[in-house]
């Protein structure tokens, strides 16, 4: 299986009384809480962590896009990915991704992803999220009633821009372009593998099946709650006659590894509580604007995880924030010794049938030392116990196909005089 290292890039210095004094971590967060000189250190620590993860052997490193959000400091993940393209050698660069409807024109995404793919020697995974309501509707003023159609049109345009060798005209419903001729084109042919980060929407499952893309369920609430969604996904794949290749599916999981479970419980308490309290303090008003979820999805009562987060946020006002014990008991974070974590993750991967497992090993206000420690223990003592899973039976058709290692450029060492 594939083990990937995912960074959300949370602002690590929200005050202790944040949830009491502020309504939301997202959209209308108080910008006076942002200290650029502290963020300078955060960004650089975070990029060190991503580079370390790539260097120590994770199959891929993942970044994503959020706006006006204190748990996600990457309005443009492509900027981080560009740096990773130069500072890493072998890891896949998984941009999860660019919210297509937000780019005007969307050929901008075709261009930037093509640049990343070419610079990295063909290591890019192209992620295309619809984007959360907070990011798309409220921060970027997108129309909730048109978002999905606009997204799908942008996808078709990007794909054609990548694969059509001749200059073409585009007369779409939302985009009109007389001359499309994306230059550069991606290195991977016909295009980089496409992964779709999504909540639990039936349309997304069907579309991933139809397009033969990876569906990645990026839940913050762990494998126990994620199971139902993944069961729904696989039931839909069965119904559509698709095979159960586990590499069709991705899943996100928080993990904390230490020598012993007791030690892990001590080490990861603070960053986990910081994330699940302060970082998920999302005002329910942003959760689900009319039109964002399709009527079919509402009918199927598949609550989006954003609604879940908002419900949790309002719950936490009424009942107090989740304790670390709850966070661990409910499986939001998998905690333990390397063997215990490996055993649990094997169970998670097998039960959910997920071949692309994305680990969150830095979260909340976790500092660089602990993030490195967690990453190193995982890479050296957890990963080897999981690597071979699924590999004998299934082919990962959704993994980047880079140039041969010896054909890839190596950045020259910068000598500071």
């Amino acid at each position, binding site marked *: 299986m594939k083990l990937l290292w995912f960074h959300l890039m949370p602002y690590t210095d929200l005050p202790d009384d944040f949830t009491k004094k502020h309504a939301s971590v997202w959209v209308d967060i108080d910008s006076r809480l942002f200290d650029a000189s502290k963020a300078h250190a955060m960004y650089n620590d975070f990029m060190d962590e991503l580079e370390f993860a790539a260097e120590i052997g994770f199959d891929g490193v993942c970044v994503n896009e959020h706006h006006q959000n204190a748990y996600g400091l990457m309005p443009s993940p492509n900027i981080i990915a560009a740096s990773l393209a130069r500072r890493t050698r072998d890891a896949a660069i998984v941009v999860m991704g660019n919210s297509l409807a937000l780019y005007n024109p969307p050929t901008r995404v075709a261009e930037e992803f093509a640049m990343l793919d070419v610079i990295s020697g063909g290591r890019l995974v192209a992620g295309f999220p619809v984007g959360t309501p907070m990011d798309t509707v409220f921060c970027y003023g997108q*129309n*909730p*009633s*048109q978002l999905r159609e606009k997204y799908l049109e942008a996808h078709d345009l990007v794909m054609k821009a990548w694969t059509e060798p001749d200059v073409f005209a585009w007369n779409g419903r939302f985009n009109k372009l007389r001359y499309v001729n994306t230059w550069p084109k991606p290195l991977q042919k016909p295009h980089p593998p496409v992964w779709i980060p999504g909540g639990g929407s039936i349309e997304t499952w069907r579309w991933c099946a139809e397009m033969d893309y990876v569906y990645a369920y990026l839940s913050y609430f762990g494998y126990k709650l994620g199971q139902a969604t993944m069961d729904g996904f696989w039931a839909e794949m069965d119904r559509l006659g698709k095979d159960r290749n586990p590499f069709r599916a991705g899943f996100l999981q928080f993990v904390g590894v230490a020598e012993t479970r007791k030690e892990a419980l001590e080490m990861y308490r603070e960053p986990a509580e910081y994330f699940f309290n302060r970082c998920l303090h999302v005002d329910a*008003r942003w959760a689900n*604007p*009319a039109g964002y979820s399709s*009527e079919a999805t*509402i009918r199927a009562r598949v609550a989006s995880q954003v609604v879940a987060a908002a419900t949790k946020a309002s719950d936490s006002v009424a009942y107090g924030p989740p304790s670390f014990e709850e966070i661990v008991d409910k499986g939001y974070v998998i905690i333990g010794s390397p063997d215990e974590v490996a055993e649990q993750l094997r169970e998670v991967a097998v039960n959910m049938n997920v071949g692309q497992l994305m680990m969150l090993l830095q979260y909340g206000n976790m500092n660089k030392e602990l993030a490195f420690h967690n990453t190193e223990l995982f890479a050296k003592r957890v990963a080897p116990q999981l690597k071979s899973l699924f590999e004998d039976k299934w082919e990962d058709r959704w993994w980047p196909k880079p140039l041969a290692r010896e054909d890839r450029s190596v950045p020259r060492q910068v000598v500071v005089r």
Partner: protein
Amino acid sequence: MSAAGVSERLVKVGGESVRVWEKGKGEPLGYLAGLGGLLEWTPFLDKLAERRRVVVPSLPGFPGGGQLHRQLDTLADWVICTLDLLEAAGLDGKDLVGHSIGGTLAAEAAAFSRASVKSLVLMAPFGLYDENDPPGDPFNRRANEVAALFSSKPAEFAKARLTPPAGLSADDATEWTIVQIRAIEAASRLLWPLGELGLSKRLHRITCPVKLVWGAEDRIIPASYAKLFAQRLPSATDLQIVAGAGHALDFDAPEAAAKV
């Protein structure tokens, strides 16, 4: 439709069947409902129907209005659809009352096509923008705040307009909710992100008589917007601010609102 004396018919607009309610005698008076649309006939409409034959076509995406809104991408699409709807309902060239988003479309219809509207009553329409006092946001949703945003009688409003009728099955309650969500989606399709739609450039084209009615406690489009409209509408003859009423002034003060 169970309200006494109300007839219902279906007309074709853009290939979809659209509900038209009617009650009363005399010259027709068209009514385009506001945000959320009409799930049932209301006391406000009864008041109007005491003096006129009130004709109430449903806007696209609103209850009874089908799902044509999903085809409407631009303001021009919306206005043409509104003109089609007025013609189909027999309201072409007649007196027209529009509330909230219905008022916006009534005003746009009159500006695009003068002959289509004989006179206008605009009740708290969207369409202009005051940067010192932007409209309230009816599209972000924290369930316990919606009623107070719309109405000066939030508890009653929540019960009458936001709660599924008692005794519905779980599936029917879901469908009831979906109809409500669809109406908000349709409105957001035209109005989000609540900027100026360009109406200020077209108001000079409205030459028919116009009356403006506003709830003094409107928390979505503050009553100060009434003056902005009045200043830009040469033919505005009357401006009435209804005390004690919010944006849903048809609900909060049906008698006072219907007097105009």
